[in-house]
């Protein structure tokens, strides 16, 4: 029975992390690119992401419950919170990766007659790939851990075991939640490292 639950909750956990990371990356990477073009926005956007990062995770989940649309009890509230957490590392690494492109390379791209779009897609993004993916990797590994708190607001996932184990002082249950979560984190770290190596052009 426990084995069956472990599989189910692991899948639910993967779902929470997968969806959150998908949304976070598709928000943070474009916004990060925009920030390299509109430097004055940097303070505000990074400030927001920084603040989100400093709110204790349990409190953030709690804050979201009374909010309309975003909040409530259940998976989607958990996903909103996880997305908010994952934004900062991806944003920051996108920004750093693009700004770190050698200025002489950027200048020669412009001097060769590349348009702004060509500069982005052919030079800046390929050269920043490794750094951006490193941000995604950090965010993913963190999210796998943080997602265990989703169970506190009915979001499911491996946190269910952990909260139940804590409540009933049952070490087996605690481990049934913590060990798979740790294994997923290690696997995700390795897997994304491999992707980083594969996709990086240099």
């Amino acid at each position, binding site marked *: 029975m426990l084995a069956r639950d472990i599989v189910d909750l692991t899948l639910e956990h993967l779902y929470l992390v997968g969806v959150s990371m998908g949304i976070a990356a598709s928000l943070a990477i474009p916004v990060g690119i925009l920030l390299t073009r509109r430097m004055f926005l940097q303070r505000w956007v990074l400030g927001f992401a920084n603040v989100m990062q400093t709110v204790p995770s349990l409190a953030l989940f709690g804050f979201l419950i009374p909010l309309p649309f975003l909040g409530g009890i259940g998976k989607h509230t958990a996903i909103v919170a996880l997305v908010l957490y994952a934004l900062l590392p991806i944003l920051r690494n996108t920004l750093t990766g693009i700004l770190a492109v*050698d200025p*002489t*390379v950027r*200048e*020669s*791209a412009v*001097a*060769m*007659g590349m348009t702004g779009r060509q500069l982005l897609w052919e030079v800046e993004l390929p050269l920043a790939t490794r750094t951006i993916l490193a941000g995604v990797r950090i965010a993913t590994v963190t999210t796998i851990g943080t997602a265990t708190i989703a169970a506190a607001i009915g979001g499911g996932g491996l946190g269910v075991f952990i909260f139940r184990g804590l409540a009933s002082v049952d070490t087996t249950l605690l481990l049934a939640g913590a060990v798979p979560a740790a294994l997923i984190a290690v696997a995700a770290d390795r897997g994304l490292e491999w992707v980083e190596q594969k996709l990086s052009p*240099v």
Partner: protein
Amino acid sequence: MSPLVSFRQVATRIGQKDILCNLSFEVEAGETLVLLGRSGSGKTTALKMVNALLLPSAGEVLIEDRPTTRWDPIGLKRRTGYVIQEGGLFPHFTVAANVGLVPRLEGWPSPKIEARVESLLNQVGLPPAQFAQRYPRELSGGQRQRVGIARALAADPPLMLLDEPFGALDPVTRVELQHMLIDLRDKLGKTALLVTHDVREALLLGTRIGVLHNGRLAFFGGRSDFLKAQDEEVRAFHTCLGDTWKDSI
């Protein structure tokens, strides 16, 4: 025939500092004009005005009689070759992709690009079979600069801009590349505007020399006039030449 490039009372300032002041000169088709100056003399700024990387704050730069402000900035850059120190090659492109860049941006069919890349690599002394598929990090400094020159020539631009192209090279390689550039220039009949702080390079490559000092033209003329000129800044460059050259002054 009208000059290929003409600067007319060009001035530019960044903040409170005048980078260029009332700069007027012309580059005739077929010549190699060298802008010689110390660091901070404004020579690179002047060069970047030619392909509209920078625009003048006063005066105008004419390319084929049309001000740079009225050229399509992308089109102007694609028809002007540009070589910078250390090459500025794209580290994630192979040598072939680097050289073929502008033709590709211009939408040439790929067999034509390949043929062009092959012929250019041969001309700059890098056998394509050996070098085409390498990445810039797998090349020496001199080889990278050869690729940089091939890339600048790729779309057969009438004008080449070179910003201290040999500044980072060892002396032996530098002389090799200087002679290669002379050969290419003579063979292809390109007009070139080259910026350097090396007076020997200026005398070797320049058909005419302009000396920039604090954003102003301190001297402009041929080699023999340069060697006779009494302007203080020009004489400062004379002293760099050492004794062997003194006889010819």
